[in-house]
């Protein structure tokens, strides 16, 4: 035994005699993680969250979350002598007088953008591969919760510096709160500590931004990751991979080294971006005053689609009985996002209702093999993209010399027309890909070599594909549509006729697929 081993042994013994953890730790270190590039997306989320905690803590050492008036007397000449809030002045000081302060601000901001982007990418991966299915519905819902929290946390974060751009964002936030029927005005006055902009909002969202929401984040992320751990990771189909096993590398040492190394890579990339690419240069915007605004005011990208929806809303307000209801704010800013997020959270249950499938699933789907789900996903992406484009309509108009009115009308019509078109195209593409898989399996892959047969005919030589690939192409299930008859076994009409009809229709649409190669067909080919 080397001296090092001896010391480690002593420490381990000390701990185990008090915690009895050897059995559990041994089991955990042998835990297997399947390998696939797309499984890194969730890691990027977690790592950028850690980076946010680190850089955010650094920023709190100097940031003064107060709306008290100060006269700026720092090193940035153009703003010298101007009246501004202590929050804005201290953000300027962090940017110009704390060594590495600007870098940390940019790391924090870049990490936030990457955090949200990684969440969305991770969500899409989980959605398109069906990783949300039983038994992982809880984790899917926790993920949606994290996405929603991220939107709020991001909004609060970029509102803290109290510059002209972020103040404009808060003005819009206050208008959304005010638009709530009955209680809106009161909630707005309580949150802002009086009429907008009040004096209370920045210190209050500071507490939420650095304490409450990160606390909730930390708790939910912990549960999210513990559930992945406990339920074991999903895996892509392949030879030797079944619903009953998980194939991959053990935690110690390969996964630990790769995942641990990847944290530093993510941090390094964000640090590099922050070193060379400016983000949110608040000194250019000036301090917030409600009477001014800068053209091209844009929220961060993850809020852009919501802003785009607000922009395209029709000018609808109801005036009745001495009250006003602003549909032009309520529908795009609260009702539509509410439907979108609730629908996302419930989707695993909706799909299981449609397919009637209540089994556990640990093998992932190839998106093409579930055309309906894939099409629904692309349809949703299209919806958000149209909204996002409209959220940047002013920027697009000035950069590409377009008419802002035309972009707006394009979005207003496109938001209804384009998603269904995307659905149909995607579904057809999926079916075409299934057909291609079938051809590949039956006829092998094209080699590009032409042969001239003795009687003059030209044929292309096809090579049979590998057994591994052949397995992949036919290992998936093709569920049949549910058979729900309108009458029960005694010929009596079953209750819930409409519900049954809807379920039958959806189930039928969901089960549309190109029949995969049967065993008999395969055998026939072998005899050729």
């Amino acid at each position, binding site marked *: 035994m080397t001296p090092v081993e001896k010391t480690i042994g002593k420490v381990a013994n000390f701990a185990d005699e008090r915690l009895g953890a050897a059995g559990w730790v041994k089991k955990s270190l042998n835990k*297997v993680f399947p390998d696939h590039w797309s499984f890194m997306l969730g890691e990027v989320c977690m790592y950028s969250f850690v980076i946010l905690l680190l850089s955010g803590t650094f920023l709190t050492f100097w940031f003064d979350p107060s709306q008290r008036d100060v006269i700026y007397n720092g090193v940035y000449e153009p703003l010298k002598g101007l009246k501004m809030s202590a929050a804005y002045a201290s953000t300027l000081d962090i940017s110009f007088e704390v060594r*590495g302060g600007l*870098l940390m601000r*940019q790391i924090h901001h870049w990490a936030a953008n990457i955090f949200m982007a990684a969440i969305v990418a991770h969500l899409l991966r989980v959605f398109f591969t069906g990783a949300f299915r039983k*038994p992982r519905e809880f984790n899917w819902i926790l993920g949606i919760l994290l996405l929603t929290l991220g939107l709020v946390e991001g909004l609060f974060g970029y509102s803290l510096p109290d510059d002209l751009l972020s103040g*404009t964002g808060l*003005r*819009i936030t206050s*208008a959304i709160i*005010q*638009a709530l*029927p009955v209680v809106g*005005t009161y909630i*707005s*006055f*309580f949150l802002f*500590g*009086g009429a*907008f902009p009040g004096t*209370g909002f920045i210190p*209050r969202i500071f507490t939420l931004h650095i304490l409450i929401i990160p606390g909730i984040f930390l708790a939910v992320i912990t549960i999210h990751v513990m559930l992945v751990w406990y339920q074991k990771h999903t895996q892509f189909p392949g*030879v030797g991979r079944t*619903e009953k*096993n998980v194939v991959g*590398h053990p935690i110690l*040492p*390969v996964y630990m*080294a*790769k995942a641990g*190394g990847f944290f*530093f890579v*993510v*941090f*390094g*990339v964000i640090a*590099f971006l*922050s*070193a060379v690419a400016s983000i949110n240069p608040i000194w250019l915007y000036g301090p917030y*005053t*409600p009477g*001014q*605004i800068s*053209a091209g005011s844009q929220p961060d990208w993850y809020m852009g689609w919501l802003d785009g929806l*607000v*922009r395209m809303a029709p*000018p*609808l*307000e109801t005036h009745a009985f*001495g*009250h006003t209801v602003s549909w*032009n*704010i309520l529908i*795009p800013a609260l009702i539509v996002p509410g439907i979108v997020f609730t629908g996302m959270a419930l989707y695993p249950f909706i799909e299981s209702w449609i397919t009637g499938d209540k089994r556990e699933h640990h093998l992932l789907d190839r998106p093409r093999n579930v055309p309906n789900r894939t099409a629904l996903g692309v349809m949703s992406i299209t919806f958000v993209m149209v909204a996002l484009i409209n959220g940047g*309509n002013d920027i697009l108009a000035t950069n590409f010399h377009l008419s802002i009115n035309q972009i*707006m009308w394009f979005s207003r019509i496109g938001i209804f027309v384009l998603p269904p078109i995307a659905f149909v195209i995607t579904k057809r593409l999926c079916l075409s890909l299934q057909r291609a898989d079938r051809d590949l399996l039956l006829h092998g892959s094209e080699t590009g070599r032409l042969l001239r047969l003795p009687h003059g005919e030209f044929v292309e030589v096809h090579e049979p594909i590998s057994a*591994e690939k052949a*397995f992949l192409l036919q290992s998936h299930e*093709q569920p*049949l549509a549910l058979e729900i008859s309108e009458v029960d076994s005694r010929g009596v009409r079953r209750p819930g006729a409409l519900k049954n009809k809807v379920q039958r229709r959806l189930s039928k649409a969901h089960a549309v697929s190109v029949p995969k190669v*049967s065993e008999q067909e395969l055998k026939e080919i072998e005899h050729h």
Partner: protein
Amino acid sequence: MSNELVPMDDSIAPAHAPRSTDINPKAEKRAEQQIAILFGLSGLGSLLLIYSYVFVTKDVFIFIPVMGNQNAQQLGIGIGMAMSLFFLGMAAIHWAKTLMSDVEVVNHRHEFRSSDEDRDAFVKTVKTGAAAAGLGRRKLIKRSLGAAIGLFALPPVLLLRDLGPLPKKQLETTNWKAGTRLLTDPGNRPILASDLEVGAVVQVLPAVEHEDERPLSDIAKDPVLLIRLREQDFQLNPEKLAMTHDGIIAFSKICSHMGCAVALYEQQTKHLLCPCHQSTFDVPRGAKVIFGPAARPLPQLDITVDAEGYLIARAAFSEPVGPSFWERNSQ
């Protein structure tokens, strides 16, 4: 319900192919050196960071193609940090990929459903516990518990009451009153009607007691835009036309949609555009909404001149300025 295939035999899986580092000692040595170099680059990054922090002063700028003039200290600290982190991570990953075992192993999954015995025992435990508490039998306790919990929820909400004052009439009123002088913003100077040429736009605020110490909540509702057109350009009803003075028309600058400052005036089309959501208001027609999500025109301020010829408000705004709210009476 599905045409499930019999799982294929594992024997069709290709044999595990060894990497060059597994069989070639030279390749192994090379990988080891590469990893060491990566760790070395990380160390260099840390040194660059320390050097930039301690020895580079804040006022040094260096020119870098594409990026332009960059602050040397920030850039040095940033690049140093990026290198130190990135190469550390790359070294670990390269190590794992080339030298650590790449043989895949298999774990088995367990079914999540508990065994029937466990589930029965669970139900029994809960039932025993509930019976011991006797909640089902003791109606009085059950009802009073419900009432107490209901009341218990109120204090936390009530305790938040002092977060802010009640709205009262604050959203309905501004500092504009009959006779209030229009002062330039910035500058706080009164304006003569003749100061404005045709096509000119001026932002004004009401004259108040302490003009240099306006609270932001006043600036959030008081700003007014003065625009001078040719009189024949107006397409207003007589009532609204009477609110203009000598071709000068005054609108609240606070957007009737979400309260942004409606700051973009296009002289040729005489349109006011809100940069937030592109609501477009036609000035000659009394800031009528001609595009975008705003549902109401910008409120118009009734203006005239006082005895000295300075512009004043003839009356307060006849409707609340800014975004809508539940209590807003639009009749």
